[in-house]
């Protein structure tokens, strides 16, 4: 195999898949870091976002790139609603109960998708897209957009967290919640803001997975493990870590078919997760351990 083949058939798909995981993993790391629990409905929230975009494209007739921000807004609002009606009242109780509630939400979101949109696989656009070739490197437009959009979304988030008052409040809450409360940070506002951002990230992850593959009710659930592995690999609470972790998991998964049977591609994220918990639970960038 030539280097070019390696890039075209393994590295590029890996980076694309990794970008999708990264979008999801950033959301997971925010929930883990700020709200301090493992959000098991994350994958199914992504599914919901992807199908919300589909409804806008198929029924509303809007362009896919208009559908993306709209779906992000819908999913952000949905996440705030889920928190308000299902998670918020558990906040005084052990966090593990919220984890359990989120598993229930995962099931409910999936059931909604299955009832409303059925169980057939769907796509945003029809027809086969041939990759363009640049100096021997074959890449499809949508793949390029996926990576660029991921970088753009993460850059905006990064700027928000570093330079705005409420972005800093989110970081403070993640860093030292007691002191943040003593400083007068409103926990409720930070929680809602976090869910809005997390919902938007979920929709983006689901959208790009749907754009590059296809939409189905289980699409998000199968992403859950790689997304968690990416967040923990990067270091819980670390946005940049989640991006790096996502890219690593994506690339490793795509490359793995060179060494192990394709069926076990999905097992890789799990293996990486266990290894990182065993040797360096704080992750690559020294995150939190709950």
């Amino acid at each position, binding site marked *: 195999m030539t280097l070019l083949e390696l890039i075209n058939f393994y590295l590029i798909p890996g980076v694309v898949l990794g970008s999708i995981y990264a979008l999801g993993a950033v959301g997971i790391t925010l929930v883990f870091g700020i709200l301090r629990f493992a959000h098991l409905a994350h994958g199914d929230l992504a599914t919901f976002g992807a199908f919300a975009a589909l409804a806008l494209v198929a029924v509303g007739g809007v362009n896919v790139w208009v559908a993306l921000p709209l779906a992000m807004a819908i999913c952000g609002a949905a996440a705030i609603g889920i928190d308000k009606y299902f998670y918020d009242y558990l906040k005084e109780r052990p966090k593990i109960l919220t984890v359990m509630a989120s598993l229930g939400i995962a099931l409910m979101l999936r059931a909604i998708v299955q009832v409303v949109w059925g169980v057939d696989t769907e796509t945003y656009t029809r027809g086969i897209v041939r990759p363009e070739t640049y100096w021997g490197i074959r890449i499809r437009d949508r793949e390029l957009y996926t990576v660029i959009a991921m970088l753009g979304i993460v850059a905006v988030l990064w700027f928000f967290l570093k330079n705005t008052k409420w972005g*800093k409040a989110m970081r*403070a809450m993640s860093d030292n919640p*007691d*002191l943040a409360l*003593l*400083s007068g940070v409103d926990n409720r506002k930070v929680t809602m803001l976090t869910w809005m951002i997390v919902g938007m990230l979920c929709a983006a992850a689901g959208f790009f997975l749907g754009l590059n593959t296809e939409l189905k009710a289980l699409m998000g659930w199968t992403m859950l493990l790689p997304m968690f592995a990416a967040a923990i690999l990067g270091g819980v609470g670390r946005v940049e870590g989640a991006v790096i972790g996502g890219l690593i998991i994506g690339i490793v998964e795509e490359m793995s078919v060179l060494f192990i049977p394709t069926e076990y591609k999905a097992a890789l994220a799990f293996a990486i997760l266990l290894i990182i918990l065993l040797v360096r639970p704080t992750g690559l960038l020294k995150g939190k351990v709950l």
Partner: protein
Amino acid sequence: MLQKATSHVLAMQEVRGGYGDADILHGVSIEVAEKEIVVIVGPNGAGKSTAMKAIFGLLKVRGGSIMVDGTDIAGWTPNRIVQHGVCYVPQVNNVFREMTVHENLEMGAFLNKGDFTEACDRVYALFPDLRERRRALAGNLSGGQRQMVAMGRALMLSPKLLLLDEPTAGLSPKYMEQIFEITRGVRDSGVSILLVEQHAKQALAFADRGYVLAAGQNRHEGRAADLLADQEVAEMFLGG
């Protein structure tokens, strides 16, 4: 506004309370006058830190009153107490480790709507070391510098009263002196200070007045120098 009974910044009277259903404080009375440094000492489990948390609204107060500047703040939320001019520096985890020194100070002024460059300048003037390290992560600072960040954060809203919970815990004697020095500087800038100290002798040598708590009650009180000379107090802290 009610007429002020005293010139005391803080006057807590016969405060009782605790975390759960059981009381830890069984009647504690502490007063702090303007520009005064007052220290609370006492054996482990005497309720020193608990008394401080009671002032800051972190536990249930079931009796007594806590007057700050003539207003009873018993039962208020910490947020409201901060806005009333009382700031609190916890003993541990008192900085945002993954944020820069400057961002820590900004978080101290979170409730303040306006510009806080002036407040930052005031804090940096008090702690020149911090100005140099303003871009460093608080978690990477030395113990003494971290305590400065913690105090600086609390001073951002120009409180009348600063509560310090064992500021020298875990610091070497050299740093302990430094912290006391800084605390004096803060007092000289016009802030009253109430602190809890484990190192009773050193703290009494440095404070203006002191209270000795035992089993959740006042045991002794008076000028720090007098307490230091008191035979009974000295016996309580033999080796301490």
